[in-house]
C-alpha cells in the first residue's frame, strides 16, 4: 500500500487550516498526503516524525453500525501511514510506527506502538508438554498442528527439529519490523494498549485490556475477534478465532477457528483448529484440533490432547517434587475425562478412551483404543479395553467434528483427518486383540486381574474385550471392501483392478496421528528425511508436502485395509470371485447391523428407569413418566435412535442391490 510517489507535501493553506483546527506537527514537511486531501477531516491531531495520510473523505461504518466521518481526531500520530477511508479518533497516548491500511477504524485506544525490531509474537519459544524444557515449540504466524507436533514430539530426530526451528526463525526474521501493520477494514475500539502487535484485515479488537508482542491473523471471510478485558502477551491468534471475555494468554498460539473466553487462562501452550477453552486453565499443553474444555476448576497441564473433552475439575500433576515439573501426559485423540478425574503424569491413554476417577498410578494404554479407564479406591487404573467402541457418544462424536469445523474462510493450516475408524485405530485394535488373547491363553483362572501397561484388567474381561475389538475390526475392514467395490462400480471400473493397490500408495503396518493428520509411518519417515536433507526447506514446502500426504490418504488407507483384510480373514483378495465378494458384502451387513444395534441399545440406556431419576418433581410415580416424556421424549422417537434404525433397515436392501450389481459386473468381467 505504501507508495511514496502517491504522496505530496501539504500546502501552506492546508497547514494553516490544520493549525486552526488545533493540529500541530513536529515538522510539517514530514506530513505528506495524497492528492485531493481535505484538511477538514483532521482536527486536534498531533503529528510526529514521518506521517503519510491517504484520502480521508467520506464516512466509515463503525462496528456498532454507525456511519462516522473518516479522519483523524484527537490523536497523536507518529511515524505512521494512514490509508484511505480510515477513522482514527480519541487516542489517549499515541499511535506510533504503524502502517494502517485502508478503511480501518481506531477509536478510544489508549496506546498503540511498535518498537524497533518487533517480532509480533513470532520466534517465541515455549516449553510445551515438558514444563522443565526440552520440547520447545517456536511460535510463528504460519505454525500448523503438524509442524508444532514434529518440533515438539519428534526430538529423537534432532537434525529435523533443527531444520524446523531454522524455518520458524527464518520466518520470524522475515516478519521482524520497526513498523506494525493494521490490515484493511480492521476495527480497534476501546483498547487500553496495543504494543508490537500486527493486526490482520477485518480483525475486530474491542475493549481488550492489553495486547503485547503478538499477531492477529484475520481475513475477510474469517475475521478474528479479540474482546473485552483480554490480556495477551506473546501470542499469535489465527484466523476465524475469538479470544474474549477476560481471557488471559501468556506466550500462547491460538490456531484457526478457536474459541477462548470466559476468563480462561493459558500459558506456554498451543491450541490448534477448533479448540474451545472457557473458565479453566492451561499450562504447557499441546491442544491439538478440537480440544474442548468448558468448565471451571479444570487444569490441563503438560499434556497432549486432541478431539478431547475435559469434564469439570479435570486435573493432572506433572511435578513429583523431585526433579521439577518434568512429567508429561499423552491423551490420544478422542479421549474424554470425567468430572474431577485426575491423572498423575506420566500417563498415556489410547484413542477414544474415557478416564474416570483419581488415578495416582502411572499407566500406558496407548494401544488399547476405546477403553474405559476407571480409578480404583487405591488409585490404581482398572481398564476395560474396547468398552466404548459401541457407545453412542463415540458415534455422535465422529459425526459432529467435521460439521463443527469453523474454518470456512481462510486456507486451512492444520491438516485434519476426522475418521474415528481408520488404520490408526483399527491397527491398534488388531494388536490389542492379539495381546488380549495371549494374556487370556497364558493366565490361570485363579488370577483375578492382569496388568497391561500399568493398568489392571480383570481376567474375565480379556475375552469380552477381544469380542469388542473383533466387532470393530470386522465392521471397518468389511466396510472398506464394500466401499471400494461401490466406488469401482460407480466409476464403471473393473473390479479386479479396483481392488488392487494403487502404485502411488504407501503401505505401512503402523499409522501415525500427526497432530490430527493420519498417515502411514513410511510417509512420515519419508517426509522427515526430506526435511533433514533440506529438500523441504520452507514453511510453504512443508505445508505442500503435507497436502500431498493428505491427498494420498484414500489410496494409502486402501493399501493398509486390503493387507489387513487378508490377514484378519485369512483370504487372498486377488483370488476373490464374484461369489466371494457377495459373501463379503453379506458379512458386512451382518456385522454392521450388529454394531449399529449395539449403539442403539447404548442410546436406550438414556431412556431407562435409572435415567429417569429426579423426573416428576413433586408428582406421583405416574408423573415421572409424563415428565420424562415431555422433557426427554420417547426412545423410539429420538432422532439419533431413528437414524440408527433407519441405517440398519436400509443396509440390507442396499447390499442386496450391490450384490446384484456385483453379479452383473462379474458376469461381464468373467470374474467367477
Amino acid at each position, binding site marked *: 500500500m505504501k507508495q511514496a510517489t502517491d504522496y505530496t507535501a501539504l500546502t501552506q493553506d492546508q497547514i494553516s487550516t490544520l493549525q486552526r483546527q488545533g493540529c500541530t506537527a513536529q515538522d510539517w514537511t514530514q506530513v505528506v498526503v495524497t492528492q485531493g486531501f481535505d484538511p477538514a477531516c483532521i482536527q486536534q491531531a498531533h503529528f510526529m516524525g514521518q506521517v503519510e495520510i491517504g484520502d480521508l473523505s467520506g464516512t466509515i461504518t463503525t462496528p456498532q453500525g454507525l456511519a462516522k466521518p473518516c479522519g483523524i481526531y484527537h490523536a497523536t500520530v507518529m511515524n505512521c501511514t494512514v490509508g484511505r477511508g480510515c477513522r482514527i479518533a480519541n487516542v489517549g497516548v499515541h499511535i506510533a510506527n504503524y502502517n494502517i491500511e485502508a478503511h480501518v477504524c481506531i477509536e478510544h485506544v489508549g496506546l498503540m506502538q511498535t518498537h524497533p525490531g518487533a517480532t509480533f509474537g513470532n520466534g517465541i519459544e515455549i516449553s510445551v508438554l515438558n514444563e522443565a524444557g526440552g520440547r520447545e515449540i517456536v511460535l510463528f504466524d504460519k505454525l500448523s498442528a503438524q509442524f508444532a507436533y514434529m518440533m515438539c514430539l519428534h526430538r529423537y530426530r534432532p537434525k529435523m527439529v533443527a531444520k524446523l526451528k531454522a524455518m520458524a526463525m527464518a520466518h520470524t526474521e522475515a516478519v521482524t519490523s520497526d513498523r506494525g501493520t493494521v490490515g484493511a477494514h480492521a476495527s480497534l475500539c476501546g483498547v487500553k494498549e496495543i504494543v508490537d502487535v500486527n493486526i490482520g484485515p477485518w480483525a475486530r479488537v474491542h475493549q481488550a485490556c492489553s495486547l503485547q508482542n503478538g499477531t492477529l491473523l484475520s481475513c475477510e471471510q474469517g475475521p478474528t475477534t479479540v474482546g473485552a478485558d483480554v490480556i495477551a502477551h506473546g501470542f499469535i491468534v489465527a484466523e476465524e478465532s475469538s479470544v474474549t471475555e477476560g481471557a488471559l494468554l501468556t506466550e500462547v498460539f491460538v490456531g484457526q477457528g478457536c474459541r477462548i473466553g470466559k476468563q480462561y487462562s493459558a500459558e506456554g501452550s498451543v491450541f490448534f483448529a477448533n479448540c474451545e477453552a472457557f473458565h479453566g486453565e492451561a499450562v504447557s499443553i499441546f491442544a491439538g484440533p478440537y480440544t474442548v474444555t468448558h468448565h471451571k476448576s479444570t487444569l490441563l497441564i503438560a499434556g497432549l490432547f486432541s478431539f478431547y473433552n475435559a469434564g469439570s475439575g479435570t486435573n493432572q500433576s506433572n511435578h513429583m517434587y523431585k526433579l521439577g515439573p518434568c512429567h508429561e501426559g499423552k491423551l490420544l485423540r478422542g479421549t474424554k475425562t470425567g468430572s474431577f478425574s485426575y491423572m498423575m503424569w506420566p500417563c498415556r491413554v489410547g484413542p477414544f478412551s474415557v478416564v474416570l476417577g483419581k488415578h495416582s498410578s502411572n499407566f500406558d494404554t496407548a494401544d488399547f483404543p476405546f477403553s*474405559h479407564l*476407571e480409578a480404583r479406591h487405591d488409585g490404581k487404573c*482398572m481398564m*476395560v479395553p474396547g*468398552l466404548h467402541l459401541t457407545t453412542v457418544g463415540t458415534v455422535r462424536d465422529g459425526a459432529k467434528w467435521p460439521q463443527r469445523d469453523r474454518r470456512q474462510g481462510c486456507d486451512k493450516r492444520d491438516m485434519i483427518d476426522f475418521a474415528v475408524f481408520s488404520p490408526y485405530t483399527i491397527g491398534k485394535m488388531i494388536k490389542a486383540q492379539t495381546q488380549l488373547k495371549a494374556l487370556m491363553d497364558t493366565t490361570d*483362572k485363579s488370577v483375578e486381574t492382569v496388568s497391561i501397561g500399568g493398568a489392571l484388567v*480383570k481376567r*474375565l*474381561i480379556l*475375552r*469380552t474385550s477381544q*469380542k469388542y475389538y473383533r*466387532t470393530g475390526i470386522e465392521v471397518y475392514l468389511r466396510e472398506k471392501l464394500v466401499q471400494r467395490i461401490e466406488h469401482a462400480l460407480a466409476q464403471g471400473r473393473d473390479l479386479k483392478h479396483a481392488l488392487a493397490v494403487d502404485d502411488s500408495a504407501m503401505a505401512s503396518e503402523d499409522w501415525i496421528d500427526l497432530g490430527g493428520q493420519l498417515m502411514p509411518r513410511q510417509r512420515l519417515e519419508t517426509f522427515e528425511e526430506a526435511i533433514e536433507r533440506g529438500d523441504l526447506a520452507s514453511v510453504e514446502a512443508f505445508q505442500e508436502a503435507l497436502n500431498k500426504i493428505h491427498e494420498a490418504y484414500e489410496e494409502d488407507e486402501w493399501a493398509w485395509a486390503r493387507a489387513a483384510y487378508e490377514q484378519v480373514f485369512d483370504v487372498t483378495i486377488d483370488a476373490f470371485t464374484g461369489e466371494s465378494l457377495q459373501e463379503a458384502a453379506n458379512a458386512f451387513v451382518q456385522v454392521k447391523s*450388529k454394531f449399529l*444395534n*449395539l449403539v442403539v*441399545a447404548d442410546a436406550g*440406556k438414556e431412556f*431407562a*428407569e*435409572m435415567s429417569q431419576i429426579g423426573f416428576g418433581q413433586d408428582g406421583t410415580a405416574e408423573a415421572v413418566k409424563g415428565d420424562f416424556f415431555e422433557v426427554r421424549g420417547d426412545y423410539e422417537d429420538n432422532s439419533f435412535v431413528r437414524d440408527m434404525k433407519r441405517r440398519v433397515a436400509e443396509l440390507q436392501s442396499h447390499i442386496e442391490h450391490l450384490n446384484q450389481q456385483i453379479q452383473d459386473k462379474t458376469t461381464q468381467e468373467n470374474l467367477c
Partner: protein
Amino acid sequence: MSDVERRIKEVVARTLKIDVGRMTDESRFVEDLGAESIQSVELVAAFEEEFDIEMDDEEALEVKTVGKAIEFISKLL
C-alpha cells in the same frame, strides 16, 4: 433350584458382591441388584466362563433379570 439356577445365582452374587438370598427370578441386575455398567459386562463374562458358552452381545442385552439369565443360559447348554 436347578444346578444351572444355583450356579447362575452364585455367579451373580460373586460378581455383584451381594447375598444369594437377595435374589429372585424377577430381580433386575441394574435397578434391583445395583449392577453398574462395568459390572454388567463382568457378569456376562462370568456367565460365559462358568458355563463355557459365548453370549451374543446383542442377545445378552435382553438379559436384564436373573430369571432371564436362567432361561437364556439354559437354552445354550
